[in-house]
């Protein structure tokens, strides 16, 4: 449960559209931070540009709202200058995968001690629904009116390959699991990456026959498959459907980390 003193009451209600999943992710992250018992003075939320990156503006801690795609670079700086602070980065898919892709893989490689929560809504929501690197193949957006022809980026697998210490993926429907995953990420020394598939009914759902929030949530729920189940299907030699994405904890390991609290 989130204590109301973590939110800036005078800024609410926030600017997100009706049914946007970003608010759910804020709830889950704050729930996990609360579980950790961190104080407000020693927690910093960093974000870039985009819908998701407005999140720290509604949280009553010190925060950085930085340039497009450079949230991880700024967060690395904060962590290097003040290793005693707890750094949480909110970022979106256009922010992290498109313009900030190199910052992302190098932050994973360096294994800086912070938690990155990526709200992946499959689209550039704020600027009017342009296709992003994570738009699924065949999905319609304003820049891909005949369906996306390029394959999508799998951010969680990218983080595993680049060397993050903890990688998980959940959707905004799985609130309990997401809270536990964020809490595990906050506890892990080194970079913890949690990809959250969220719904964007206004700009993604409207073009893809998922106009209602409940339809979009149902779509996320029915297309999520646990990693363990996917592995079991492969082991048994059964076919894995191609339109699913895996959810769950993808990796947890102990590579040497940078900037761990002394």
């Amino acid at each position: 449960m989130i204590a109301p003193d973590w939110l800036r009451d005078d800024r609410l209600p926030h600017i997100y559209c009706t049914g946007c999943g970003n608010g759910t992710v804020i709830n889950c992250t704050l729930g996990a931070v609360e579980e950790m018992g961190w104080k407000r003075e020693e927690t910093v939320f960093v974000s870039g540009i985009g819908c998701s990156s407005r999140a720290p503006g509604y949280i009553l801690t010190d925060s950085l709202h930085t340039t497009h795609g450079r949230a991880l670079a700024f967060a690395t700086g904060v962590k290097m200058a003040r290793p005693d602070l707890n750094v949480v980065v909110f970022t979106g898919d256009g922010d992290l995968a498109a313009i900030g892709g190199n910052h992302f893989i190098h932050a994973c490689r360096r294994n800086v001690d912070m938690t990155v929560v990526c709200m992946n809504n499959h689209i550039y929501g704020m600027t009017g629904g342009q296709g992003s690197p994570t738009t699924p193949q065949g999905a319609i957006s304003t820049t891909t009116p005949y369906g996306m022809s390029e394959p999508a980026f799998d951010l969680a697998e990218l983080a595993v390959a680049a060397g993050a210490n903890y990688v998980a993926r959940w959707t905004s429907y799985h609130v309990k699991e997401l809270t536990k995953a964020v809490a595990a990420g906050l506890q892990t020394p080194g970079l913890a990456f949690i990809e959250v598939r969220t719904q964007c009914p206004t700009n993604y759902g409207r073009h893809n026959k998922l106009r209602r929030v409940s339809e979009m949530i149902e779509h996320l729920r029915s297309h999520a498959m646990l990693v363990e189940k996917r592995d079991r299907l492969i082991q048994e030699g059964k076919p894995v459907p191609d339109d699913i994405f895996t959810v769950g904890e993808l990796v947890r390991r102990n590579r040497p980390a940078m900037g761990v609290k002394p």
Partner: protein
Amino acid sequence: MKLVIDESRCKGCNLCVLVCPYGIFQEGTELNSRGIVTPVLDRPERCTNCRLQALYGRMLCGVCHMICPDQAIAWVEERPFEPHKVEVEF
């Protein structure tokens, strides 16, 4: 404890209607003063968190509270002798 929806924050996405295991939230029909159709509560005393939160000393279900994107759902302490709406079924 009692369940309340903050009318000044709710945007009427009806996600709580989708996730509540007891079916306490029902889709509303009337516009409020902000022009938003907020969900209505159907016998909220059935909510497990309302009844048992004080006994267990922790959050029990709380899925609606976590999934609400607008941070509009909360539990508040009841004042003593608060009037209740009672429906008598014959």
